[in-house]
């Protein structure tokens, strides 16, 4: 009984955490390149709707994922045009893009509400999936979930162990210096936005074609904003993002699991659990967060003319 509850809790944590982690990784890349994108919610929604629609049209969830990634990237490139080429304020543009994404995804998705898809299903790893407690947690998940931890490692390697990552971070810290060193800040920022858009799109698609297998208006329900907060929580580091996403996903799963177990705590109180937990961890594990933030976060490189 208790064993199933724990296993159920862990599965729930991973289910909720996966899409959060994809989105957080994307935002880490963007912010490392000096851009804060509050439109992440919109990117996720565009990914969710385009992934779902493509899957309905083609019957192939792999193509759906591709559609989601492309939609996310395109959406972010538009954001890039506004904040890089037009030098608009990033916070204002981000919020505007968020609402734009909510509206646009609703328009695209409206004819497909109630469509049935096969979606990405769990893949059991033979033998291992039968292990009690841990089997369903680690060896009975969908493809995107299996891929997300290796992907976090790849993002970490890309940011901290490649020349591309170094250049990207230098733009985030001081674009003028990067420019003086012969780098093109605009081009690097566009690349970062593109990668982040792909990840944000996949984050949305995980909800619409793997977890819930349905499309509904604004189905991300604020996860884009949580991911932005998780970036700060994880000190702009892809590996800490894993912990952040799992803790937050775990808190959502715990809140539901406690109710299913019949623990006598009001559901209103349990609803606050993920947020209380985040506040608690931030308070205890404060530290020099400001020092971790990219130096030129939110500032636009004005050129050197």
């Amino acid at each position, binding site marked *: 009984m208790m064993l*199933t*509850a724990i*296993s*159920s*809790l862990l*599965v*729930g944590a991973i*289910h*909720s955490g996966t*899409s959060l982690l994809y989105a957080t990784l994307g935002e880490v890349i963007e912010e490392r390149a000096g851009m804060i994108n509050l439109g992440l919610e919109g990117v996720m929604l565009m990914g969710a709707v385009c992934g779902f629609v493509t899957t309905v049209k083609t019957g192939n969830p792999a193509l759906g994922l591709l559609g989601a990634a492309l939609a996310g990237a395109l959406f972010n490139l538009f954001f890039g045009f506004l904040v890089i080429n037009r030098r608009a304020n990033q916070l204002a543009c981000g919020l505007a893009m968020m609402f734009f994404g909510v509206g646009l995804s*609703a328009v695209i998705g*409206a*004819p497909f*509400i*109630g469509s*049935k898809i096969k979606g990405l299903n769990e893949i059991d790893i033979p033998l291992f999936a039968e292990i009690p407690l841990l089997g369903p947690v680690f060896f009975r998940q969908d493809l995107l979930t299996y891929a997300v931890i290796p992907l976090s490692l790849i993002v970490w390697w890309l940011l901290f162990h490649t020349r591309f990552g170094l250049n990207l971070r230098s733009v985030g810290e001081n674009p003028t210096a990067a420019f003086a060193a012969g780098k093109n800040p605009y081009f690097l920022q566009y690349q970062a936005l593109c990668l982040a858009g792909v990840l944000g799109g996949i984050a949305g698609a995980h*909800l*619409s074609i793997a*977890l*819930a*297998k*349905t499309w*509904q*208006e*604004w*189905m*991300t*329900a604020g*996860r884009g904003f949580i991911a932005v907060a998780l970036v700060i929580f994880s000190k702009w580091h892809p590996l800490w993002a894993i912990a952040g996403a799992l803790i937050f996903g775990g808190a*959502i*799963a715990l809140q*539901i*699991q406690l*109710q*299913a*177990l*019949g623990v*006598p*705590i*009001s*559901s*209103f109180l349990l*609803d606050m659990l993920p947020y209380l937990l985040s506040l608690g961890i931030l308070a205890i594990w404060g530290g020099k967060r400001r020092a971790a933030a990219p130096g030129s976060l939110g500032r636009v490189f004005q050129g050197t003319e």
Partner: protein
Amino acid sequence: MNKKSEAIKKQFVAVLFSCLFILGLTSNPALGQQPKLKVGIIHIGSITDGGYNQAHAEGVAIMKKNLPEVEVIEVENVPESADAERVMENMIKQGAKLIIAASFGYLDPALRVAKKYPEVKFVHPAGYKRAPNLTTYWASTPEAFYLMGIAAGKTSKTSKMGFVCALPVSYFLANINALHLGARSVNPKMETRVVFTGTFLDPGKEATAANALLDQGADVLGMIVDSPITVVQIAEKRGAYSIGYHYLGVQKFAPKGWISGIAFTWGGLYTRFAKQVMEGTWKSENILGNLASDLIAIAPFGPAVPAEAIKLVEETKKAFIEGKKNVFEGPIKDNRGQERVKAGGHWSLNDLGKMDWLVEGIIGQPR
């Protein structure tokens, strides 16, 4: 430079005026064929939500089909605030004589506008206040949920049900209680677990809740959230049964595990409202539809439901309609052991708004 900006200014003014002119043309009723009646309806969400709003929109579509001489002004995503008042007034200025304020939170805005325009008729779903020109209407669902409970109790193999609910609101608690009582009437061992997600729309959370309930051994899932699709799909995938709500098209997601579902059907009522307004016979009422009315529909039963259960459902439905049976017949204890309905008494369906407890055997927190 100056000349250029002057020209742009002139152009802008010209465009502005032509826009206004076109607007004037389209909103001037004298130019088009005058419809017999204009009906305005405001929705809280999107009319393709596969749920609450779609049910109202379909009702209006049926009215339009029955009465082609009626013109409909439909506005979606109207917030439950002063915006609602503005939209309704705008509809009245366009000539609407009947306003359907199709969300619970529109009650006060509708009452304020109704006071200002006594010649316009208003109708509001589930409202608890009325005005001389404002009718309230709703269909009572606990009886239907009780019937679903009978079918679920007869179909379940584990004697455990799970329920995913948005918020612990009294009307929802009443429905969960009714479902549980119906199930217990045929299987006294039946146990129901409830998870409140805290929001009407979060398919990701609904999926986690459905999985958690199934992990606890439930093999029947019910739900009160905006769209039933997520919960029904997960139940089907994991070989469990499900009971739908709001939107009956959801059946196609569960060819094996579908038990049945409840939906609102407003078409007949909206047609009657429009007819009454045109004929001048409309009056302010408080309409509460029951199983015998055309306001609520029960979906066809799925293949897993045994024939004896369907027979029993039919008999009980008859008893409800004839007034021989009540959903909340005493004695009923709540899940904290307190007696809520005395033996021989019953909880009136008019007092549903006061229900803040869950029946014995339901695992969940009503507050």
